[in-house]
């Protein structure tokens, strides 16, 4: 008996102690200006949590944002992201020219740009970078970003030109245009002939236009026909086109080479890119990590091992000091950087971590100075939002659910519309707090001037009417939920706290507004991806999309591939045509209007249920200056610094509109 009482006492004591602590904790969190400790580290050293372990230090291989942020310290391209707006600002290129229809870009490099080993960065390095990034051997998962460049897609896919050995000419796409869509070649427009009208006018700095070259002529010659290199695939591609099939007889096939791509180094400091289509957004894409310039000599010497700390050569404001996987990656200021005087931090320590609570605990304890986006759980916002170190802004990312339109009952557009209208997105946003309701497919408030179309509003009555129209009614013509095959529709999601919460919300909405209790189905991530990509899921699946560059096209492009890579099975050539029309329009506002029209057209088919525009939702300590909640949470590290004077700290979200960037007191 003696033990019983003593163990009870101990147990009781433990409980009391814990509840006391709990209370203490809750109280301490609510009465403060900042979350946890705010003592700045000594000197100019930044400790930052960047997300999951980087896949690689090779900017052309690592695909995620966590890698992207590290690459922004180590590498640069022609341009980089503005720290506030994420629009492209000059980096290694000091200026650039764009032709009239935005299909050709010429970059002028600065003469003082150097690698971390002191060697000069030239246009040839960029040529190598483009050739390498798109080569099938590198097998980069980001290679599709370069597909706008002329003949880049066939090169990456291993396509062939068809040459007539008789007169040494190539078969042209336009001669067989009828079957354009069926060939493996991209749905490319015929390039405009090279006339003075399509050339850019010389800018103030240069008196003459850039030189014309044989390669330039080739780029503006009519498009060559491209076929798959593999014989079986080729036979498949031409089987419905007797004219083409006949024309292939006696011809030789020439693989598309790296040199055939629309990239050209005109001299050491001038670089020209020719695209397959008009793409005004292409400049924004140039700041993407995939186009960061990489050192040819080092890669050719060490191959895969070139990114090891002892071999690596970089070109950004910082260079690699040490890398302990899963623990920390340290970069230090690079004196060879062209703008080294502007760099304020001496050192950045990137901590790879994935688990949000662990990250937030670390932040609260003052062990890190800033964290990546989406780290603050929605449920915490009541407590965190009033704090002055909380960073919030609309993000270039959306959350939506996609619908498998290939299976009944979801093959019926009426049912899809009804499901969409039966979800109260305002309520969802109000509850999630950190997001904005979304009825369209492009994020709201991220692209200034874009006349975003509005999708169907929340309307449960209309939703039930649509269900009646779709045939789910009783003898009296009233809506009858029992007729609906609920075993054919599951709400599928991959396990993660926020996904679970949103899925449960949807379940409750449809139960309330349509009388349907749909089953939830959670899956391990990779299992989920497979089920979604192969359209194996039943009904509805969670999805999210983060833009690659600052333009609505990065979202709308999701529905331009014929095989239904978007995971819904929806594809409409008319939609693709509408997008292409818009991109050919030189006027920015006009183009936006056309894009909005295309978006509305897609929404009308309702292959998705848009839910929210995400918000960045992260935190930084008040003494960190020069970090802004921009739409991608990508930080140009050279503008960041540690302010030791509390009077100059950020109390709240820093000013996002002024052009000025902070300089910290020494």
């Amino acid at each position, binding site marked *: 008996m003696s*033990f019983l009482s003593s163990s009870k006492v101990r147990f009781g004591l433990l409980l009391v102690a814990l509840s006391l602590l709990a209370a*203490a904790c809750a109280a301490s969190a609510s009465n403060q200006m900042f979350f946890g400790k705010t003592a700045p580290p000594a000197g100019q050293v930044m400790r930052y949590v960047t997300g999951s372990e980087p896949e690689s230090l090779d900017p052309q291989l690592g695909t995620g944002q966590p890698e992207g942020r590290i690459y922004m310290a180590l590498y640069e391209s022609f341009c980089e992201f503005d720290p506030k707006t994420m629009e492209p600002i000059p980096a290694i290129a000091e200026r650039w020219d764009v032709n009239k229809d935005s299909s050709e870009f010429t970059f002028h490099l600065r003469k003082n740009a150097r690698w971390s080993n002191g060697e000069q960065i030239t246009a040839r390095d960029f040529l190598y970078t483009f050739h390498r990034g798109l080569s099938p051997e590198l097998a980069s998962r980001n290679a599709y970003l370069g597909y706008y460049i002329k003949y880049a897609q066939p090169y990456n896919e291993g396509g062939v030109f068809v040459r007539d050995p008789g007169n040494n000419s190539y078969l042209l796409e336009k001669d067989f245009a009828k079957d354009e869509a069926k060939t493996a070649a991209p749905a490319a427009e015929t390039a405009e002939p090279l006339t003075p009208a399509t050339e850019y006018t010389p800018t103030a700095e240069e008196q003459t236009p850039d030189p014309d070259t044989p390669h330039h002529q080739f780029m503006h010659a009519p498009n060559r026909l491209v076929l798959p290199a593999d014989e079986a695939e080729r036979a498949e591609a031409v089987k419905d086109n007797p004219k083409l099939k006949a024309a292939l007889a006696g011809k030789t096939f020439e693989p598309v080479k790296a040199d055939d791509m629309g990239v050209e180094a005109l001299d050491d400091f001038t670089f020209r890119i020719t695209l397959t289509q008009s793409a005004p957004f292409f400049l924004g894409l140039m700041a993407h990590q995939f186009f960061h310039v990489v050192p040819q000599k080092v890669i050719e010497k060490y191959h895969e091992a070139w990114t090891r700390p002892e071999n690596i050569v970089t070109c950004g404001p910082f260079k690699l000091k040490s890398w302990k996987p899963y623990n920390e990656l340290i970069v230090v200021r690079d004196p060879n950087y062209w703008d080294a005087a502007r760099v304020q931090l001496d050192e950045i320590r990137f901590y790879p971590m994935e688990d949000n609570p662990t990250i937030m605990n670390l932040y609260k304890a003052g062990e890190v100075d800033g964290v990546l986006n989406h780290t603050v759980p929605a449920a915490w916002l009541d407590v965190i939002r009033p704090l002055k170190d909380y960073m919030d802004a609309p993000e270039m990312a959306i959350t939506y659910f996609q619908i498998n339109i290939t299976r009944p009952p979801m093959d019926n557009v009426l049912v899809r519309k009804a499901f969409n209208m039966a979800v109260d997105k305002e309520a969802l946003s109000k509850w999630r707090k950190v997001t904005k309701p979304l009825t369209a497919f492009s994020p709201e408030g991220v692209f200034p001037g874009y006349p975003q179309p509005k999708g169907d509003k929340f309307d449960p009555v209309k939703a039930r009417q649509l269900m009646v129209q779709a045939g789910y009614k009783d003898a009296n013509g009233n809506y009858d939920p029992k007729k609906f095959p609920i075993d054919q529709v599951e709400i599928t999601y991959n396990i993660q706290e926020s996904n679970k919460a949103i899925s449960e919300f949807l379940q409750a909405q449809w139960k309330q507004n349509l009388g349907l209790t749909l089953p939830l189905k959670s899956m391990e991530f990779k299992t989920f991806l497979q089920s979604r990509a192969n359209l194996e899921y039943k009904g509805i699946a969670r999805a999210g999309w983060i833009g690659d560059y600052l333009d609505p096209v990065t979202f709308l492009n999701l529905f331009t*591939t014929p095989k239904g890579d978007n995971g819904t099975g929806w594809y409409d050539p008319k939609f693709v045509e509408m997008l292409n029309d818009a991109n050919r329009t030189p006027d920015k506002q006009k183009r936006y209007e056309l894009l909005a029209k295309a978006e509305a057209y897609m929404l009308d088919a309702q292959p998705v249920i848009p839910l929210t525009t995400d918000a960045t939702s992260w935190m930084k300590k008040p003494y960190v200056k020069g970090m802004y909640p921009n739409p991608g949470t990508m930080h140009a590290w050279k503008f960041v610094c540690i302010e030791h004077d509390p009077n100059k700290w950020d109390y709240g979200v820093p000013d996002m509109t002024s052009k000025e960037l902070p300089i910290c007191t020494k």
Partner: protein
Amino acid sequence: MLRFIIRRLLITIPMVLIVISITWGLIRLAPGNFYSGEKKLPAAIEKNIREKYGVDKPWYVQYGKMMGSILRWDFGASLKYEGQSVNEILANTFPVSAVIGILAYLLALVVGITTGTISALRQNTKWDYGAMGLAMLGISLPNFVLGPLLVLIFSLTLYWLPPSRWGGFFSLNIIMPVITLSAIYMAYIARLTRAGMLEVLRSDYIRTARAKGLRERDIVFRHVMRGGLMPVVSFTGPALAVLVTGTVVVERIFALPGLGNYFINANLNRDEPLIIGIVAFIGIITLVFNLLVDIAYAYIDPRIRY
């Protein structure tokens, strides 16, 4: 002895190979791929990747390649972490897991044996009940509850210790993971020690020793301890093998770059070479530890001969 070791190896090595083969098959059966991600890749890019990593080859070629890699003890490059070889990952992560594990086990041994001994010597007293009650609590409190509670108290409220991350072998970061990890082992060793000691305390030779009038301290340290710790020794092998090869929960809670954390992520990433490498490595470690325990047994207990 040597014959015994050889016989053991002859049985276990093929078994490790079988385990690896089945694991390899399981990876193949699990849905998804190392390169699948939120953004579905264009078919051509997927094809390029499959060619680059040899995933397009028939299964027996891949299996042969995998088996070859084990025999050479060179597992090649990780599929997920471009530019890191599996051998390197093993070399970097194992020390972290091993240090945490060994420290935790040492702590468990010291505390567990002490409390267990006190319990046994003061059987059925308050000391005994108190210690055994605490031990039971240690066994019953899951480490994923204990760890966060420690974090809550010592990092988020008192701001004494860093809540997570690896700070090297001599840092404050190491304290909470070690305690969290050792709690259950502490408790278990205390129970094992107590039971083992009680058994010896009642044996004839201790009675004889007492009758001879030997000092109690000598009896306890020279005779009782030696026999009473046998169960602890046999527990040490498998337990230490688990501890040094990484304990997933603790490594996850404290974000430590250990083997266990990598293993879970390798599973979730379908990173085949890494999974195979870790499974093979753990298999060998377990084998070695069990062997060491058997040898240790022979030294402690003179009745055992091989």
